């Protein structure tokens, strides 16, 4: 302390500080952290929500902009810009002045009520991060920022001062230690280690060793740790004091005190020597420094300093050093800017040239990217730049891009010109940034010059030209204050008068509207354009202005003068008209417009088809339909007739939507009468049938379907057998659901009609229905599980899990319920299962349990739960549920109340639905717009006045497509698992193995971090079905052992047990394919307990052939395990070693239980020998008689499919011998069998009764205890 006090006597202020400091210890100082307004309130996006009733659609935009300007928004904006700054400074170690200015302006707007971090970040930016400015200019920025901090009362702590000092040093700005200390003392701040270091560095830069030493001594006295940085400062200090020997000696002192002499120390010394022009000394020290690792930026610093001092003899050596390093850090790259700013182009070129060849591709990219930027930033001579960049094999045009980014269009254009001169193609669009920037600079002359350049470009075509003129040139000229006439004059000057005419017209359209554009176009000779150039502008303007009359006139001009097809315009007009009136529920405008213009509008059939005509009055639809013209390609029938087929179909669809059966029938009959050839109404036919069924008129539905099928059988077959036709499948399933609820007695017949008519192929729909009809309550627990397993394997999640859950909720068996859930979870979404549970618990009188599930799950179950209540017609339970969930969070509550409205609407009790609104009020929640719109629609259809204002539809992407009716369906499609690859979800669902593997290969190629969990995720999503098996088979065929292991070893996506088991078998199988015997042995030995998972008949067979020793070892392991785990071995014995099988069965009869009836049946297929089938039948008869029917029927089916009818007959005889009736077989199989026999002109072994399913089959002579799946 004595030393410091002595020192301080020379500086008056110091005396005071020394006094203050006496009683304090720096090290014990705890700095009070300043807490500025870190917590910026989250912007409430709801503010933007449109609450005004009849507001026009366009109003939403200005409102949005208004809120954009509000404080809340600016805080968001602040977050964004400051974050950008953060990224820039951390990632690139540099910042642009413009970026800094932007953030600073924002900070000032907020009066610097920003976090301390951000203040410091701003301060740091004024240092050497800002490459583009001279140190002196940066120093000015620092000072002004510091003044602002003080002005706005930012609480400055010692960290601020440390950063300030650092910046001062970086910018080489001289500062007074005493002043700073004084300021700090005033604020009661204590200097810390860093502060002292900075002081030392400051004094050393001036060469003031004495002062620096004083501070050092003080630090020593106060036991403040001294880092290497202090020594480096002293090296500089000594050289600046022209005492190189002492400087060199510092290195020795460092070694003595045990500090490492690093590259930085040498850098300081070398720099000092260079400043002293002691180049021999430099050479010597450089040799000494060879053993020390210097970083690229240190070497480059030397290069810069050497060049500055005019000594280039060492450059070559230093280049080589750089080349040897094999890397560049960002600081070094940034130094290139300094070099270029100093004009040492060759040095920079050499550095880049040498390093590019030695670094990795990633760094290569960074170096060349930044080098090109710096070239542009420093306006290096064009010729020189061209030469250098070409030499580096980089794209010279990218320099121009950088110049544009730096807002320097002059330089960019010069570079582009040079490129063009040298024969490098410069596409016209490269000049577009120049148009924008000259426009912003109000530089008319250059703007025109650039346009001339663009015009000259050889690759410019007409569409491009018009687009450029409309989008860039005209707006730029207009912003310069040019009016139409002067623009025309300018364009004549360039030689573009005709093109410009069109462009100006479109520009007028975009800016001021149809009326003005029409006026402009009226007397002009126009230059032809493409439709795409106009379409966007046209539609945007139309949606903003709703000026249909003029839009129509405009479209006429487009047709007459520009030769464009204007069907799209017409459709847009009609669409906007309908939308406009629909929102306001006022069709007067539409009537009026149609009255005047009806005859001039023309639509293509497809355009008409895609119009959304919901809620549109019939009269208007009729009028619109008259506009449809014949396409020639699609519709050959009469074009303009009053009741064209498309229109009739559409009318019928609309009647169906409003459940008006009579009206629908009227249109339907008209359609069939007038257009016997027209077949594109199969969906309408299905919808008709659904409505019939909904009204309990099943027979009429069946007749209708049959009638359609007989008219258009070939067309229908082609549609029905198209597996991608989801609409059709969806409709058929819908019919099935309707039927099972409304007319359960005729479900069978309806389904038969659907399939036999060809509406849907396969028997999958039919099968699923059969199981739906099983009365689960009468089944044994095991029976239910078996059924569920079968359903999941066959249909994935295409069946109703509800019954299964209901079964065990009713019987109050929690364990079994858990099992159902475990089985269902791989294929159903968690939401689906949870909501099903909630609903079932509610229905079956366990409201507490339901509520617990509902509240404890952190998912938004409300919409699904409501959907289910509504679907099962449990409105009373839904009401009860709504009562119970009064306290749930707002979002869920809104959904529940909306659900109530929908429920009441479904049963047409509009009054009750309206009452729900009061409930909203009571609970102080605001109903959503869509809720109100829905309710309004409900009221309208019921003919009741809407007692509230209907909110308009705001054109935001989220709510444009909301359709209340289909929301639930869409939601069910989305899997709720937390996916690593959500974007591939669709791909997974398709289950196209090739595509999945393609995606996987891509991930591998990218070395994606999550590549390892990709396959497990896929399997998890697609669940347990044959798609999963396909993937596994693919992996086996391609010997992807790694991937199989990734499935087996993953923990993040619990793949379903059965898939995992299969994967294990496939894994062994693959190893066998690859003859990896050692590996197989290892795996089997390590998994003795669940060895049966790894075995299958084929694996065992191969094992016996390849490695009999291991086989017998495996045999003994399996035999010592639990009998239930002997299934694979037993199966193997049955097929290949029957004696052993018999022996095993005698000893361990339970072992047969391990084999499922399905696997048992498939055993017979392994080796197609009747003998084996006999064995299986024998065993089944003995041990598991209930499965006998299953085994028989499936085997028969296999034979029928293979066309071996003789063998099938044989089995049928055997079956009858077992007193089982083959006619009780699964209907699908039976059909197949009968068809096969008939086709081969064989006599059926029984009387056919197909089509006569109404007769009860219980009178068959079956006396077995087989449960037929009926």
């Amino acid at each position: 302390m004595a030393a410091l006090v002595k020192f301080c006597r020379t500086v008056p202020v110091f005396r005071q500080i020394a006094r203050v400091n006496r009683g304090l210890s720096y090290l014990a100082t705890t700095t009070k952290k300043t807490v500025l307004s870190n917590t910026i309130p989250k912007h409430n996006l709801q503010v933007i929500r449109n609450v005004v009733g009849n507001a026009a659609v366009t109003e939403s935009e200005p409102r949005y902009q208004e809120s954009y300007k509000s404080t809340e928004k600016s805080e968001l904006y602040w977050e964004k810009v400051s974050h950008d700054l953060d990224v820039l400074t951390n990632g690139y170690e540099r910042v642009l002045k413009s970026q800094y200015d932007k953030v600073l302006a924002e900070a000032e707007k907020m009066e610097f009520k920003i976090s301390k971090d951000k203040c410091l970040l701003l301060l740091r930016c004024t240092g050497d991060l800002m490459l583009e400015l001279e140190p002196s200019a940066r120093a000015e920025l620092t000072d002004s920022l510091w003044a602002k901090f003080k002005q706005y009362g930012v609480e400055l702590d010692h960290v601020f001062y440390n950063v300030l000092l650092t910046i001062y040093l970086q910018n080489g700005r001289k500062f007074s230690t005493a002043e700073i200390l004084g300021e700090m003392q005033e604020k009661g701040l204590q200097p810390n280690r860093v502060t002292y270091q900075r002081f030392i560095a400051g004094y050393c830069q001036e060469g003031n060793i004495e002062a620096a030493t004083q501070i050092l001594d003080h630090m020593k006295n106060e036991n403040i740790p001294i880092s290497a940085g202090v020594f480096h400062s002293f090296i500089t200090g000594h050289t600046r004091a022209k005492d190189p020997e002492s400087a060199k000696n510092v290195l020795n002192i460092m070694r003595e005190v045990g500090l490492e002499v690093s590259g930085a120390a040498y850098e300081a010394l070398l720099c000092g020597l260079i400043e002293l022009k002691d180049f021999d000394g430099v050479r010597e020290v450089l040799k000494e420094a060879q053993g020390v690792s210097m970083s690229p930026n240190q070497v480059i610093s030397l290069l810069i300093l050497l060049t500055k001092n005019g000594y280039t003899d060492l450059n070559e050596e230093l280049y080589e050093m750089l080349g040897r390093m094999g890397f560049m850090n960002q600081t070094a790259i940034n130094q290139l800017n300094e070099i270029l700013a100093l004009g040492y182009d060759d040095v920079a070129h050499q550095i880049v040239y040498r390093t590019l060849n030695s670094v990795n591709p990633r760094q290569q990219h960074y170096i060349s990217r930044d080098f090109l930027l710096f070239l542009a930033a420093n306006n290096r001579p064009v010729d020189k730049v061209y030469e250098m960049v070409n030499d580096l094999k980089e794209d010279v045009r990218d320099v121009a891009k950088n110049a544009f980014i730096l807002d320097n269009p002059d330089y960019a254009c010069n570079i582009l010109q040079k490129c063009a001169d040298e024969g490098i193609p410069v596409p016209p669009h490269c000049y577009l940034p120049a148009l924008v920037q000259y426009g912003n600079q109000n530089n008319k002359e250059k703007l025109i010059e650039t346009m001339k350049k663009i015009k000259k470009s050889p690759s410019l075509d007409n569409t491009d030209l018009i687009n450029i003129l409309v989008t860039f040139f005209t707006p730029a000229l207009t912003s310069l204050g040019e009016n139409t006439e002067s623009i025309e004059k300018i364009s004549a000057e360039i030689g573009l008068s005709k093109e410009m005419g069109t462009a100006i017209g479109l520009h007028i359209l975009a800016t001021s509207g149809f009326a003005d554009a029409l006026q402009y176009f009226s007397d002009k000779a126009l230059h032809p354009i493409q439709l795409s150039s106009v379409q966007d502008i046209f539609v945007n303007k139309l949606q903003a202005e709703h000026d249909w009359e003029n839009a129509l006139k405009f479209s006429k001009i487009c047709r007459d003068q520009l030769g464009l097809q204007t069907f799209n315009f017409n459709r847009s007009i009609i669409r906007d008209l309908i939308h406009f009136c629909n929102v306001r529920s006022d069709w007067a405008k539409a009537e009026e417009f149609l009255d005047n213009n009806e005859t001039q509008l023309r639509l293509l059939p497809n355009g008409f088809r895609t119009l959304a005509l919901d809620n549109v009055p019939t009269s208007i639809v009729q009028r619109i339909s008259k506009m449809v013209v014949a396409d020639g390609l699609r519709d050959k029938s009469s074009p303009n007739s009053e009741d064209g087929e498309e229109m009739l179909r559409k009318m019928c669809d609309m009647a169906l939507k409003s459940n008006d059966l009579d009206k629908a029938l009227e249109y339907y009959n008209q359609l069939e009468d007038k257009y016997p050839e027209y077949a594109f109404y199969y969906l309408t036919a299905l919808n008709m049938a659904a409505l019939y069924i909904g009204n309990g008129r099943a027979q009429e539905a069946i007749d209708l379907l049959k009638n359609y099928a007989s008219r258009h059988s070939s067309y229908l077959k082609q549609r029905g057998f198209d597996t991608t036709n989801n609409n059709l499948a969806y409709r058929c399933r819908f019919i099935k659901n309707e039927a099972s609820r409304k007319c359960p007695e005729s479900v069978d017949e309806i389904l038969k009609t659907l399939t036999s008519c060809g509406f849907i192929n396969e028997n999958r729909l039919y099968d699923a229905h059969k199981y739906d009809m099983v009365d689960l309550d009468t089944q044994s627990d095991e029976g239910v599980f078996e059924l569920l397993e079968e359903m999941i394997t066959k249909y994935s999640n295409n069946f109703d899990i509800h019954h299964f859950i209901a079964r065990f909720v009713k019987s109050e068996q929690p364990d079994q319920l858990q099992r159902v859930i475990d089985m269902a979870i791989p294929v159903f979404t968690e939401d689906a299962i949870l909501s099903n549970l909630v609903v079932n618990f509610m229905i079956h009188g366990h409201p507490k349990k339901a509520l617990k599930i509902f509240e404890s799950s952190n998912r938004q179950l409300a919409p699904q739960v409501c959907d289910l209540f509504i679907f099962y017609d449990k409105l009373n339970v839904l009401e009860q549920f709504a009562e119970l969930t009064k306290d749930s969070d707002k979002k869920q509550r809104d959904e529940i109340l909306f659900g109530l409205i929908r429920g009441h609407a479904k049963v047409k009790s509009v009054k009750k639905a309206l009452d729900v609104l009061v409930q909203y009020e009571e609970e102080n929640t605001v109903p959503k717009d869509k809720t109100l719109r829905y309710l309004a629609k409900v009221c309208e259809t019921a003919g009741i006045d809407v007692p509230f204002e209907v909110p308009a539809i705001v054109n935001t992407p989220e709510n444009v497509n909301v359709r209340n009716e289909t929301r639930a369906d869409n939601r069910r499609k989305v899997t709720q698992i937390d996916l690593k690859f959500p974007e591939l979800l669709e791909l997974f669902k398709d289950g196209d193995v090739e595509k999945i593997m393609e995606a996987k290969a891509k991930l591998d190629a990218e070395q994606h971090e999550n590549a390892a969990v990709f396959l497990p995720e896929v399997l998890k999503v697609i669940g347990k079905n044959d798609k999963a098996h396909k993937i596994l088979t693919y992996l086996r065929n391609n010997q992807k052992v790694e991937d199989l292991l990734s499935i087996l070893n993953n923990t993040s996506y619990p793949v379903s047990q059965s898939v995992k088991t299969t994967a294990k078998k496939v894994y062994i199988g693959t190893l066998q394919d690859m003859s990896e015997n050692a590996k197989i042995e290892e795996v089997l030995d390590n998994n003795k307990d669940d060895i049966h998972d790894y075995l299958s008949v084929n694996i065992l067979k191969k094992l016996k052939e390849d490695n009999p020793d291991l086989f017998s070892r495996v045999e003994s392991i399996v035999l010592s395990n639990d009998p239930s785990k002997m299934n694979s071995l037993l199966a193997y014995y049955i097929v290949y070693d029957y004696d052993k099988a018999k022996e095993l069965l005698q000893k361990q009869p339970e072992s047969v239980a391990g084999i499922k009836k399905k696997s048992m049946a498939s055993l017979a297929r392994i080796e197609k020998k009747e003998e084996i089938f006999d064995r299986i039948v024998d065993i089944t008869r003995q041990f598991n008689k209930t499965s006998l029917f299953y085994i028989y029927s499936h085997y028969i089916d296999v034979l029928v499919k293979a066309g071996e009818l003789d063998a099938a007959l044989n089995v049928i005889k055997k079956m009858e011998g077992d007193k089982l009736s083959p006619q009780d077989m699964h209907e699908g199989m039976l059909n197949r069998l009968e068809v096969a026999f008939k086709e081969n002109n064989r006599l059926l072994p029984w009387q056919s009764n197909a089509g006569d399913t109404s007769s009860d089959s219980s009178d068959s002579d079956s006396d077995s205890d087989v449960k037929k799946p009926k």
Partner: protein
Amino acid sequence: MSSNRLRIMVSNLPWTVSSKQLRTYFSQFGRVRVATVPFDKKTGFPQPYGFVQFQNEIDHMAVLSQENHILENRKLIVKRSIEYNNRNSVSQDGDM
């Protein structure tokens, strides 16, 4: 909707590539229906990505199956364009 299946998204485009260059490049694989590179109207720069739609599945597959696409010394990233379009999936009168 089927056309979306034939769409690819190309990213990492150099700024010197606009729709025309994109079309020219991908035409070597087959008939290109649409090729677009959006432009930023505020800056005049093209976006570094674009979309290409092919006339038929074979060409589309040919593009996707080729490992490297290099245009103006830049390795392009070519992906199947995935668009979630459920709007018409269950609509009554969807035209398949």
